[in-house]
């Protein structure tokens, strides 16, 4: 800065700058950077809002051991825009101020209502959950769940508030109460705190004994087809066969997807962080919050796979003596953190990962497309940076799948469909690097193969690493890519067997036709030479055909 000090205006000094230096609230930050949360453009914003609400509902139901029943209702409040305006993503990214300068970008106004039959939310928690960013139950634990950060639904509400000025309206009923609790909320973006506009007890209009209904009014665009709400709901039914989903679209059309199984997925267990995966900042924070009495017990109590023996080893490797918790200094922690990678520590337990299951993901693909061949594999759990994860893959081939299109890819992370940024995703990096030509598919360089093939990849983890907070693409960890690769290869091997089998069958048919073409001439010639009757001729032809059919399998 100083080097640019020229005659343009008065030079700043520390005091003058200090006047402008103040805390930036998370809410403010995200208000300006809403693309980070998936609210880049009106169409995507609408979908992201649905996604965040549905994720939360599913998580809540599963934790309460309730078979989820989720209704998504979309109402258009403004006149629909007939001519599709070019989506100006750049403007959208810069926030609504820039929109104003460029004149009104045509958007539509919607009311989105998502209702679940979950356990309900205690009235006092509602404002924080829905109108405070980074508030939630899931960030501070390591457990496989859809939501992770406590941002999503608040961000959706904030987006609605910014684009329409309308508050969020939440109705939640607890099972033991007769009435539901209704709250009208706004978020104070400067302070990242909720403003409760009104609250009252109301009648619960739904059949379920408990549940939550969220209503957000927001600007957006609703279109069917790729990357639409329709597709998102459909894909959710695929990854959550135990859920009952209902979508009521802008034309009041109801799409009902009854559950396919009444079996709830196993509830994933929560694990403590593994030392290998903990970054220094978090390590300091954990030490500050620990209830352990000493440095050593902090290590053995708060981390997974750290026994007393391992804790001692870490301390001796770090050259730090065990001290009471109150005496732990940042220097201790830095040394200990540095020593951790030098000590061999068992991998974290992996039973905390719950797969969808080979059969279910295969069924998922079967619903999507009528193919000739399906296969699926669930890999054993593996570990990246101390976080357990596992990869599942299903593959469909042939049948009604188009041979002219690139491979269809369904991506799921902790059962949540990923619809955006495919090219940034670890799954694509793996799929485009594999050689698909040996399976009879065309493959442009560094691209997905072209052919009648669809693939589903599910990455489950206590902490799925996304490339951004909008959770659109899985980050490129080598361990994760390797597992994806192995899963895909396992499926591809099955495909290769199938393709060969199919090839052999086609070959056998071709040979049978070939034989059928010429055998009659042998019969005809024999008839002419030996003056056979027609029935004698037919007999010799059919006998010969059988003889050859039998042997052609042997490769003659």
């Amino acid at each position, binding site marked *: 800065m100083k080097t640019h000090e020229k005659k343009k205006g008065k030079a700043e000094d520390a005091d003058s700058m200090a006047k402008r230096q103040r805390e930036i609230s998370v809410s403010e930050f995200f208000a300006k950077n809403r693309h980070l949360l998936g609210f880049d453009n009106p169409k995507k914003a609408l979908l992201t809002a649905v996604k965040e609400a549905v994720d939360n509902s599913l998580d809540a139901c599963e934790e309460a051991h309730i078979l989820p029943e989720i209704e998504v209702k979309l109402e258009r409040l403004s006149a629909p825009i007939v001519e599709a305006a070019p989506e100006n993503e750049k403007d959208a990214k810069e926030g609504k101020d820039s929109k104003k300068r460029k004149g009104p970008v045509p958007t539509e106004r919607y009311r989105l209502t998502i209702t679940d039959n979950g356990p309900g939310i205690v009235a006092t928690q509602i404002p924080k959950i829905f109108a405070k960013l980074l508030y939630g139950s899931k960030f501070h634990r390591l457990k496989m769940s859809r939501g992770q950060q406590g941002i999503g639904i608040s961000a959706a509400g904030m987006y609605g508030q910014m684009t329409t000025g309308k508050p969020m309206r939440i109705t939640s009923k607890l099972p033991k109460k007769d009435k539901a609790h209704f709250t009208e909320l706004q978020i104070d973006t400067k302070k990242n705190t909720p403003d409760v506009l009104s609250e009252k007890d109301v009648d619960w209009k739904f059949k379920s004994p408990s549940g939550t209904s969220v209503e957000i009014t927001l600007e957006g665009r609703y279109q069917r087809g790729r990357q639409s709400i329709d597709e998102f709901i459909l894909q959710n039914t695929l990854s959550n066969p135990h859920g009952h989903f209902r979508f009521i679209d802008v034309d009041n059309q109801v799409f009902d997807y009854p559950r396919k199984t009444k079996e709830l997925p196993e509830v994933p267990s929560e694990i403590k962080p593994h030392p290998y995966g903990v970054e220094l900042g978090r390590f300091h924070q954990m030490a500050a919050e620990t209830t352990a009495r000493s440095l050593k017990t902090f290590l053995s109590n708060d981390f997974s796979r750290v026994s007393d023996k391992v804790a001692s080893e870490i301390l001796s490797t770090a050259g730090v003596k065990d001290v009471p918790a109150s005496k732990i200094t940042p220097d201790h922690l830095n040394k200990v953190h540095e020593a951790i990678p030098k000590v061999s520590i068992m991998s974290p337990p992996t039973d905390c990962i719950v797969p969808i299951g080979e059969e279910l993901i295969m069924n998922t693909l079967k619903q999507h497309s009528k193919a000739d061949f399906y296969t699926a594999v669930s890999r054993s759990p593996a570990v990246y940076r101390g976080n357990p994860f596992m990869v599942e893959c299903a593959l469909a081939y042939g049948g009604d799948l188009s041979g002219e299109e690139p491979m269809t890819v369904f991506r799921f992370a902790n059962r949540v469909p990923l619809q955006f940024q495919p090219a940034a995703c670890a799954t694509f990096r793996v799929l485009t690097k594999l050689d698909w030509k040996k399976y009879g598919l065309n493959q442009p360089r560094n691209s997905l193969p072209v052919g009648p093939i669809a693939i589903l990849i599910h990455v489950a983890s206590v902490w799925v690493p996304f490339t951004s907070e909008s959770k659109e693409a899985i980050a490129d960890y080598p361990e994760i890519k390797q597992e994806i690769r192995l899963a895909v290869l396992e499926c591809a091997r099955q495909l290769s067997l199938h393709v060969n089998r199919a090839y052999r069958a086609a070959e056998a048919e071709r040979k049978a036709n*070939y034989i059928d073409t010429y055998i009659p001439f042998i019969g005809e010639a*024999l008839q*002419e030479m030996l003056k056979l009757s027609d029935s004698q001729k037919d007999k010799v032809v059919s006998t010969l055909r059988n003889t050859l059919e039998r042997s052609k399998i042997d490769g003659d």
Partner: protein
Amino acid sequence: MATKNKAADNKALVGIDKTAREIYDKSLKGQKPQLKMPVRSLTNVKYKNKTGYLELSNQYKTRTLTYNTVKGFAQTLKMMSASKELIETNDHASKREMYYISKNWGPARFDEQPESDTVMDDIEAMMCVNREQLRFLPEEKGGEVAGQLIVFDRDRDTNKPIKIDCTGFGSGAYSIPISVEHLEFQTKAKFILCIETAGMFQRLVAHNYWRKANCILISMGGVPTRATRRFVRRLADTMKIPVYTFVDGDPYGIANIYRTLKVGSGNAAHINEFFCVPTATFMGITPQDIIDYKLPTHPLKDVDIKRAKDALKNDPFFQFHKPWVKAIEQMIKMGVRAEQQALAKHGLNYVIDEYLPEKIKAASKFLP
């Protein structure tokens, strides 16, 4: 041509019926039928000096009906059936006509004539008959004849004898017909001279060499056709006159033209017994002639050398005759060849005035 030869017809018919019956019986038993035929190659012939021709040895190949052979099988049987019909109706078909007949066979038809010719050769070998007995006729032209010979043919309609005087064709010649079995001869000639090239034949005819030497001149035009071989054979046998061969002094003239004339071909060994001239001898051009007559030469090409070495290595006829082994080895060593017409170096009529009289004087020393 349509003159009936009962015995020959019979052999072909019996062969066809037997083969068809075997295939039929085996097929009905649920077995894969097979066609068995001798291997048609030099590797499957033997030579006995006593009989004097390349005889079929005992290697057979069987073609079993499978996916891969089903088309060829159908084609072979259809052609056998066609042959049978030709015999029964006392008709014949040329090789080309046979190829066109197959166009009625739908997918089993032949796409190109070489395919149909190969099947024809297979059937011929399978039945151990001559293709003329199957009533298939080649398009190939027979040789030409000039000189001291009267041939008796017959009028097709009246069956009256036709007398053909081979001295009466002027500067032209008598063409050997495709089938020669019915011909009769009358001659006082002292020898038959079989000549490789039409050019040399023309020179000798134009200067009436046959009158001077009292002989019969035959132009083979390369490797002699079956008809030419059979014609010379019948002529030599019935008239009891020697046959001298005059070809280019190169491995082709020796190992292909002369060998085929004398002992038959490796490819159709089943008919060699009748289609060769075991009494023929080799007048020239010998490797020694190249030296003795100081003939202009060309170097042997790779194919020539290969052919010569092949003759030494695989041909039982040459292997049997030590003088031939020596002569071929000599040629390989010299590395050169000389054409018949190289004699023109010494004057156009040198061949008539000097070479031929000198050589024929010493006919007993001709290579066997």
